[in-house]
């Protein structure tokens, strides 16, 4: 309080006193005795403090004075009750912290625009094919699209790759990307040093040049500008470094798999790169010209693809272009999940608020006298409400500050543990928006949980409060507490239902039979030494055989196979074919499509896939023998509905190779545990890798993928694999090792992410709700001790007392459960996207969760109820 304020105060004080003196003087002049006159003057004046208080209201800056005063008083009250204060702040810290954490994720991932200039103009470009809306673009098609379109300022293409980097310390595997010249120009990302590729440098026959990431630049060149112009040996071939890519750059904004090396597309030594019908995992990005809508661009692309379809009917009939805004490509999957989680965490905060409100209500009963006295001394009702709100906002701000700390330390840690690679997770930070959000949420929470107790308290009749020492004046408090507990139960139930549904989905998913046995199966990649480049296809085949033998000779390894093409649940690959006894289809739309697994004889055994008919590949199948294929049940059923596939022959479109079907095996869930049946492409074909055409075998000089089965513990197996690998060649890199179970777990990443977070929120809600009902019932028992004593004295049995208290608790619980179930029916629909195998209103989950919450609440009520049962009537009656 400043000097100015003090002066005003003494002035007011003096004015009131002078009024009383004048009034008394007048009375004595009329002949009244001095003492009586002073008393009469006082009586006539009324409540001195109240008059002062109302007079102060007309001062300016009044609220600020009051606020400072309330603040001091509030801090003093909170410090006087450390137990209450710490419980309330802890509850709020959890509630606000969880909200702040999730909001900082939502803020970074969803709210901030993508970190590219005018990112709304960016689109992903794919080739739409009969099987895939978003298939990969062949490089010749891309070049034509790029040349002929009128809608884009620039169009780029890229394709991830892996290189072994040699000649700079120990050989290592680096993530790379083949890119077209305009790749960076489209995004308007500039190199931090040097240049990007220029027009034409991306074509076959261009000079071997490369851009490298800022990370690799720092690691291998100590961030020296001299790096430009130096050479880099990738896959045994020398590339000249022309530019450095900004730190943390990734097209899809994901932290994992950021490329370290960018190489022109034309450098890809893939014999079918320039084939118009090849699907090589190339996808495009483009920037719309200002003012051009995505619909106009789609029409433009349709014009181009129609032209190409008539120019190249064999390759391009039925091929279109599909354009998807980049934002949707990057964030489409995570947006609904994050928003749902944000709603869930909002519920947690509401529950925390209800708990603190209940604590405050219980405490305000104890403080009834305090407020009655303040009212008697002239505090207006508004003033008391404001005082109480100041206290509650102080609490919530305390919780907010701690919550913010929790969020900042917790978010990154949590994202590391949680099984999800969120786009843009590296940009999660404490910015103004997160600060404002936390401040806003804290204030809102403070007002929310403070308002009911404040209004309730200020309502109290002065007389009753002073007379009754706060004992009986709490009837309406009890009602308010009851209502709050019911609400809390209802909200906890909604969260529990959400968690229950995801847990059930995940259990169902884990129990889906994927068609193979993932246990003890491990895959890894090998990058071959540069010397492989000069080897003939037959030499490569014999090296592959040797690699198999070396790994198979590790004790404890009982099955090794090369695995090219698709890996169940891990990665896709497909091929076109036609049946030999039918005429060759005129264009791609008439071809059959199949997933392809290019493996060896051990594959079936090590994956535990059942053989249905005929035989699988054997070691008699080799490059000299008849080329064979094994198909799965879905293939057999689809292409040979009325005949036996065994002995039939198929012609592979790309290679022209003819394969004889020798066996039928069980179907494997290629597309994920739960999402296989909905996919259009499910037919599967197994081919022998050594029977692949020479040109194809030659592409494996850069590396291969191997799958093996072993009972060894993972760590022991990995070290054995590494030492075996080192023995073969110091320049051969083993990388990307993943157990089949890890691949499956990864495929369930978003479900597990949702389940873990919702589970945590629901657990928190359950704890808070049971603490809440425990607190309220304990409080009621305390209030009714005397009544219970009387009942027992009058002959009530312990049983009756127990029933009385439990009945009260269970009434609230069941009301809450009922309301919660009704709310869940409406709300869980929002999460049907992450559910598998259960409906959003799964009755079993609803019933189980209702029982769980009721049981926990029952247990929470039972403790105070037992206390009530043991009330000694004599003690209870003497109490007071």
């Amino acid at each position, binding site marked *: 309080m400043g000097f100015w304020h003090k002066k005003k105060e003494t*002035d*007011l004080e*003096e*004015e*009131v006193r*002078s*009024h009383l*003196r*004048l*009034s008394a*003087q*007048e009375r004595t002049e009329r002949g009244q005795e001095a003492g009586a006159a002073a008393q009469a003057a006082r009586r006539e*004046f*009324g*409540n001195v403090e*109240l*008059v*002062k208080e*109302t*007079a102060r*209201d*007309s*001062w*300016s800056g009044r609220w600020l004075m009051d606020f400072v005063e309330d603040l001091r008083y509030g801090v003093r009250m909170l410090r006087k009750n450390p137990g209450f204060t710490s419980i309330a702040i802890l509850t709020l810290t959890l509630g606000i912290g969880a909200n702040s954490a999730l909001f900082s994720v939502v803020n970074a991932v969803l709210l901030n625009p993508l970190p590219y200039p005018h990112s709304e103009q960016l689109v992903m470009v794919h080739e739409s094919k009969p099987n895939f809306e978003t298939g990969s673009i062949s490089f010749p098609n891309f070049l034509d699209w790029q040349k002929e379109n009128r809608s884009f300022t620039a169009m780029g293409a890229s394709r991830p790759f892996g290189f072994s980097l040699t000649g700079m310390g120990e050989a290592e595997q680096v993530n790379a990307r083949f890119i077209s010249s305009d790749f960076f120009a489209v995004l308007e990302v500039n190199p931090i040093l040097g240049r990007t590729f220029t027009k034409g440098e991306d074509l076959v026959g261009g000079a071997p040049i490369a851009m490298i990431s800022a990370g690799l630049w720092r690691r291998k060149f100590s961030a020296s500008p001299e790096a430009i112009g130096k050479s880099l040996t990738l896959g045994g071939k020398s590339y000249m470094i022309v530019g450095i890519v900004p730190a943390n750059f990734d097209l899809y904004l994901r932290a994992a798999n950021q490329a370290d090396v960018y190489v022109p597309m034309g450098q890809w030594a893939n014999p079918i790169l320039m084939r118009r019908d090849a699907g090589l995992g190339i996808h495009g990005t483009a920037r719309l010209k200002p003012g051009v809508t995505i619909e106009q661009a789609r029409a433009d692309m349709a014009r181009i693809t129609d032209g190409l379809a008539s120019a190249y009917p064999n390759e391009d009939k039925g091929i279109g272009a599909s354009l998807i805004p980049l934002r949707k490509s990057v964030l489409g999957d995570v947006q609904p999940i994050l928003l749902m989680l944000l709603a869930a965490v909002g519920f947690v905060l509401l529950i925390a608020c209800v708990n603190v409100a209940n604590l405050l209500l219980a405490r305000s009963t104890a403080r009834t006298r305090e407020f009655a006295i303040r009212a008697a001394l002239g505090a207006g009702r508004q003033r008391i409400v404001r005082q109480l709100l100041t206290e509650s906002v102080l609490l919530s701000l305390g919780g907010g500050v701690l919550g913010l700390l929790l969020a900042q330390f917790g978010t990154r840690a949590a994202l590391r543990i949680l099984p999800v690679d969120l786009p843009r997770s590296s940009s999660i930070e404490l910015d103004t928006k997160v600060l404002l959000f936390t401040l806003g949420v804290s204030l809102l929470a403070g007002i929310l949980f403070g308002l009911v107790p404040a209004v309730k308290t200020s309502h109290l009749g002065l007389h009753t409060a002073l007379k009754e020492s706060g004992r009986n004046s709490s009837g309406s408090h009890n009602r308010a507490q009851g209502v709050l507990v019911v609400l809390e139960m209802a909200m906890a139930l909604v969260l529990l239902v959400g968690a229950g549904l995801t847990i059930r989905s995940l259990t169902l998913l884990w129990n889906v039979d994927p068609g193979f046995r993932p246990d003890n199966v491990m895959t890894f990649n090998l990058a071959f030494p540069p010397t492989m480049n000069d080897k003939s296809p037959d030499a490569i085949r014999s090296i592959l055989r040797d690699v198999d033998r070396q790994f198979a000779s590790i004790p404890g390894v009982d099955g090794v196979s090369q695995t090219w093409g698709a890996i169940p649940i891990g990665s896709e690959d497909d091929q076109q074919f036609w049946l030999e006894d039918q005429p060759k289809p005129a264009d791609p739309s008439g071809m059959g499509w199949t997933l392809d697994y290019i493996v060896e004889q051990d594959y079936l055994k090590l994956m535990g896939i059942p053989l249905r008919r005929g035989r699988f590949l054997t070691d008699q199948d080799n490059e000299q023998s008849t080329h064979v294929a094994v198909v799965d049940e879905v293939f057999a059923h689809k292409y040979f509905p009325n005949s036996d596939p065994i002995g039939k022959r198929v012609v592979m479109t790309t290679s022209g190779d003819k394969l004889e079907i020798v066996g039928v095996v069980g179907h494997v869930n290629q597309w994920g545990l739960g999402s296989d049946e909905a996919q259009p492409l499910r037919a599967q074909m197994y081919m022998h890798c050594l029977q692949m055409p020479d040109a194809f075998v030659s592409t494996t000089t850069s590396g291969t993928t191997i799958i093996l089965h072993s009972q060894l513990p993972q760590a022991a197996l990995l070290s054995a694999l590494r030492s075996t690998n080192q023995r073969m060649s110091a320049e051969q890199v083993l990388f990307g090792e993943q157990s089949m179970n890890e691949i499956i777990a990864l495929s369930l990443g978003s479900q597990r992410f949702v389940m873990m977070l919702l589970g945590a929120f629901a657990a928190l809600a359950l704890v808070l709700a049971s603490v809440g009902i425990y607190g309220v019932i304990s409080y009621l028992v305390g209030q009714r001790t005397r009544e219970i004593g009387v009942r027992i004295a009058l002959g009530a049995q312990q049983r009756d007392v127990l029933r009385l208290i439990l009945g009260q608790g269970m009434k609230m619980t069941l009301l809450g459960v009922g309301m919660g179930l009704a709310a869940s029916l409406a709300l869980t629909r929002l999460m049907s996207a992450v559910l598998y195998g259960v409906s959003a209103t799964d009755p079993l989950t609803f019933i189980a969760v209702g029982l769980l919450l009721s049981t926990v609440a029952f247990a929470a009520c039972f403790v105070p109820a037992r206390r009530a049962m043991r009330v000694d009537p004599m003690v209870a009656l003497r109490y007071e």
Partner: protein
Amino acid sequence: MKQRYQNRIELLQGTLDLLILQTLQWGPQHGYGISLAIRNHSGEILQVDTGSLYPALHRLAKQKWISAEWKVSENNQRAKYYRLTATGKKQLARETSKWEQLKDAIAGVMRIQEK
């Protein structure tokens, strides 16, 4: 507490301000003096509650319609005297004419009622 107010005529919102300004037209006066004057001139019907009087005085002072200074009264008592300012006089004129209109309007309505 409620009974205390029952025999009193509730002043219309804003009327107290008018009465205070009117009272101060006859010369500077302290709060107690103002309440006495209003009571006496109204034939003891209008009792000004101190809880309304002082907030009103402070409010009018904030509007700069009245000013205040500490003086010694004729009875040798220190008291805070309020005085009408120039803008206060104009405000009083405005309030008075508004009051006349209101009075006539209400009287008109009441006459119709009596017919």
